[in-house]
C-alpha cells in the first residue's frame, strides 16, 4: 500500500473488515517517510502486518530504481524502529512451511521445528523424526518471500518495462475498466516471472511486451483460488487468495490507485481443495438428477 493511503483505509474496509488505526497510520506514515529519506527510496510501501502472539511484525518495502528487482524489505515490531529484513535463506525456506505455530513477536527467538519421519524437504526421506532450529527472523523473511511469490498482485499495466529493461510504475496507467476488473487475467503476480517469457503474451489477444512481462494469476491452481469481489458501489475491486487468508489486494477501478496489504498470521492455508465445490455439479446431478 502506498504510503499516502495508509492514513485513510476505512473506505477499503468493506470487503475486509480491517483498518489501519489512526495512531498506527500516523506513526507508519512518519516513520516510513524517514526511512525513505534515509535510504533514498524512490517510493516506499507499507506491506502489512504479521500477527504474533505477543507482538506484531510490521513490514515495509521500498525501491530505488527497479520496482520489481530492487525491492528492499524492512520490518519492525513497534512501527518506529525499522530493521532490514534479511534475505531468505534456502534453509529457512525449507523449514518455514513446516512451522505451524503462530509467530511470537520476538525476532531473536529460536524455534524448534519438528521434522517428521519420511520428511523429504532436505533431500532423502528422514529415517527418524528430527528437530531443527530456526530463528524467527529467518522464518519471517521466508514467510514474506512466500507471500510475495504467491499472493502479491498488481493490475495489468501498472508496471512498465522500459526499453532498457528497468521495471517502473507506469505513469500512463489509467486503471482497469469495470469489465476488465472482473477478470483474473487482468491481474499479474508481483514477482519475478516464473513462466516462460512469452506465456502471458500468447494467452491474450491484446498483448503488449512492455506490460505483459509478468505471470497472470488466472493460471494458478486450483481454479477459483482467487476471489474477485467488487464493493457495493462498484468503485473498488478486491482480490483475495484462499491460500493466504489476510491477503487483500484492492484497486480503485478507472484510477491508477492500487495496492495490497497482508494482515494475517503468516501461515499458509493448505485446505483450499476442501473449500471449493469443484466437483459440485457432478455431485448435484448424482443426488438430484433432473
Amino acid at each position, binding site marked *: 500500500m502506498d504510503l499516502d493511503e495508509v492514513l485513510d483505509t*476505512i*473506505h477499503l*474496509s*468493506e*470487503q*475486509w*473488515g*480491517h*483498518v*489501519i*488505526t*489512526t*495512531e*498506527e497510520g500516523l506513526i507508519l506514515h512518519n516513520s516510513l517517510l524517514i526511512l525513505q529519506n534515509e535510504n533514498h527510496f524512490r517510493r516506499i510501501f507499507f506491506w502489512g502486518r504479521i*500477527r*504474533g*502472539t*505477543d507482538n506484531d511484525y510490521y513490514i515495509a518495502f521500498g525501491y530505488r530504481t527497479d520496482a520489481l528487482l530492487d525491492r528492499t524489505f524492512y520490518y519492525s515490531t*513497534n512501527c518506529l524502529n525499522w530493521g532490514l529484513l534479511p534475505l531468505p535463506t534456502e534453509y529457512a525456506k525449507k523449514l518455514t512451511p513446516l512451522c*505451524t*505455530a*503462530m509467530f511470537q513477536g520476538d525476532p531473536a527467538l529460536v524455534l524448534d521445528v519438528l521434522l517428521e519421519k519420511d520428511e523429504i524437504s532436505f533431500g532423502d526421506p528422514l529415517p527418524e523424526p528430527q528437530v531443527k532450529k530456526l530463528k524467527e527472523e529467518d522464518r519471517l523473511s521466508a514467510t514474506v518471500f512466500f507471500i510475495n511469490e504467491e499472493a502479491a498482485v498488481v493490475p495489468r499495466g501498472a508496471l*512498465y518495462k*522500459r*526499453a532498457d529493461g528497468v521495471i*517502473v510504475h*507506469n*505513469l*500512463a496507467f*489509467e486503471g482497469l475498466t*469495470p469489465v476488465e476488473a472482473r477478470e483474473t487475467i487482468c491481474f499479474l503476480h508481483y514477482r519475478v516471472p516464473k513462466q516462460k517469457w512469452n506465456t502471458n503474451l500468447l494467452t491474450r489477444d491484446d498483448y*503488449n511486451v*512492455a*506490460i505483459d512481462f509478468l505471470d497472470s494469476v488466472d493460471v494458478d491452481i486450483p481454479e*477459483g483460488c482467487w*476471489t474477485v*469481489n*467488487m464493493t*457495493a*458501489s*462498484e*468503485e473498488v475491486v478486491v482480490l483475495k487468495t*484462499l491460500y493466504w*487468508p*489476510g491477503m487483500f489486494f484492492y484497486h480503485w*477501478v478507472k484510477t491508477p490507485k492500487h495496492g495490497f496489504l497482508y494482515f*494475517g*498470521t503468516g501461515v499458509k*492455508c*493448505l*485446505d483450499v481443495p*476442501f*473449500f471449493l*465445490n469443484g*466437483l*459440485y455439479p457432478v*455431485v*448435484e446431478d448424482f443426488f438430484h438428477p433432473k
Partner: protein
Amino acid sequence: MINDLANLGSIIEINPEERDLGRVALPNEEHEFVYAKAFLQKNSTVTGENLYDHLSEILNKILSERPENVVDFFEEYCRKIKEKRFRPLTDHLEDIYVAPGRYRLANKLLPFLRPLPPEAPSTVDPEDLERADMTKNNMLDLLAYFEIAGLGLPRLEMFCLTMSMRQLIRAEPITRVRFWGKIFGMHKNYLVLEADLKDEEYVKRNENYNAAADNKIDDLVTDHLEQMKREQELPAEDALPQLWATLPPTPRIQYEEPPEPPSEPSGVGVNKTVYYVCNEVGDPWVQLPDATPKQIRIARQIYKTFTGDLNQAIVSYPLFPGTERNYLRAQIARISAGTHISPLGFYIFAGEAFGEAEEFEEGAGGDNKGDISENPKYDPPSIKDLTDKSMMFWVHHNNHILNQGRTTWWNSNPLPEGIDEELGEEEEEKPVIAGPEPETGPALLTPCSEDVTLDAIPAWSVRSSSDIAEEYAVAIVKSNFWPGAYGFAAQGKTFHNVYFGSGLKVMVPNFSPNPLPPVEQDYPLGPEIMEILDPTGAEEETWRIAHLPKELPPKELRGEDELGGEEAEEEEEEEDEDD
C-alpha cells in the same frame, strides 16, 4: 546532386526551369511546411487515421498532463491514444446510457436516508410495545471504537446499518438487537445481527417444537414397523423363478445411527438468540433457522468457506444436514460460544444481584443453567488488568457447546416411555458405549485464562490500542482460534464482541477429513461365500484316480486308499491356505 535530390523522394521540389538552369533555389519555407503537413495528414488507407492528428493529440495530452520522464512511456501514450480512438464496427450501443456503478447502491440506500414514516396510531401503550433498546446501537459510535481496535466498515455502511436495524425492530418481535459482525464469503458477504425475541414469540415457536419432537418418535416407530413388514414380505416376492429358491436374503445394514439428541428449544442454549443476516446493507434481513446438535457436530468435522448464497448446498463428508443457511447458523453458534467474552464483573449470575451471592455461586458452578444478568454495580477493571496477558479479567458469558452439539447434556440412554418394546429391546442389546456419565463443559463466567491452548497457540492475544496515550487506550482481545473474533473494552462500561472474518476456525496443522468407516460385511463369513481356487488339472487327475471304481484286488486297494486319503488331506490343507 540533382539526381540525389530526386531520389530522396523530392522532399524539396525543384522547378523544372531552375533545374534546367542548373542552379538550386533557396528552399521556400512555407511551401516546405505545407508540403510536409500535407504528407502527415495523408490518411491511412487502412484505418483512415492520419499521423498529424495523432501526433498533435499525443502532444496535447502530454503537455496538458506534463508527466515526468515522458520519453520512457512515449509508446504507452501512443497506444493509449490509439486505443481510445478505436471503435469496433459492431458497436451500436454507443448511444445507450450506461448507469454508473453506484446507481444500484444509491437506489438501495435511499430508503434508509429518509425519515421513518410516522407509526399508525394505536391504542397500545408505547411501553408495552417492548421495542428493542437502540441507544447502544449507534453504529457510528461503535465505529469509533472499531477503528481504534483496527477494525471497521465504511461509514456509509455503518450508518445505513443503524437505520436498517431501526426498521427491523419495527417489523419483527425483537427485544434486544446487536451487531454481531460480518462474515466474508467467496462471492458475497454476510452482515449478521444478533437478536433476542419476545417471550411470547419463543413460546409460540416451542409449541411447534414439541409437536415436531413427537412426530419424530412416531416416524421412528412407523419406520420400524414398515421395515419389519418389508422383511416379512421379502421371501414371497422372491418366489418367482424356482431357480433362485435358495437365494440368500438381501443383506441388511448393520450400522445403527446413535440416537440423535433433540435440538434445544428456541430461547435456550445454542438457540438462545436468533440471528438475522443479509448480503449487503439494504437487502432484506433473513432470519436463520435454529441450529440442531447434529449440524453443530458436523460443522466441527468439515471445513468449508462461505459462498454468500444462503441456499448453496454444502458438499462435504460427513454430509452436512442442510444448506449454507444452516451451516452459517452452526458456525455463528460456535463462534459465539467460543469468543463472546466480557470484562470480569460485567455479568453476574441472576441471583447474586439480590444479595445471595455465595449460595448461588455454588449452585451455578455445578450446572450451566444459571442465568446471568448485567451487574448494576459493575466496576470496570483497569486497563492494566484488562490487557494482562493471563486473561484473568475476561470471562466467557456464553455457554460452552458440548461435543453432543448442545449446551446441556442430553442422556441418550433412557428412551422415552411409550415406544414399542422392540425398540427398547434393541437398545438394551447394544452395549452402552457413551455411558450415562454426563458431559460437562466449563461453567458460565469462567475466566479466559482457563482456556486450553492448542498446539502451543494460546487462545487469546491481548493488546492495548495505544502505547502513547494510555489514558485513552482500549483493551483489544483477539482470538487466535477464531481469527477475526475480537473483543474490546474501553475505559468505562463499554465493551463489545465483534467478528470480522471468514467464519472458519484455525486448524493446526491443517484440516484432515474424517476417514470413511470400515466396509461392512454383506453376509456373515461362511463356506457359501468363500472364494475357493479351482483345482488344477493334476489335482483333478489324482482325485479321479483315487475315486476309480473298486475293481482292483483288495491288497492294492488298501494302498490306493491310503494314497487317496493323503491327497484328500492335502487338498483340504490347500483349501485352508486359500482361505
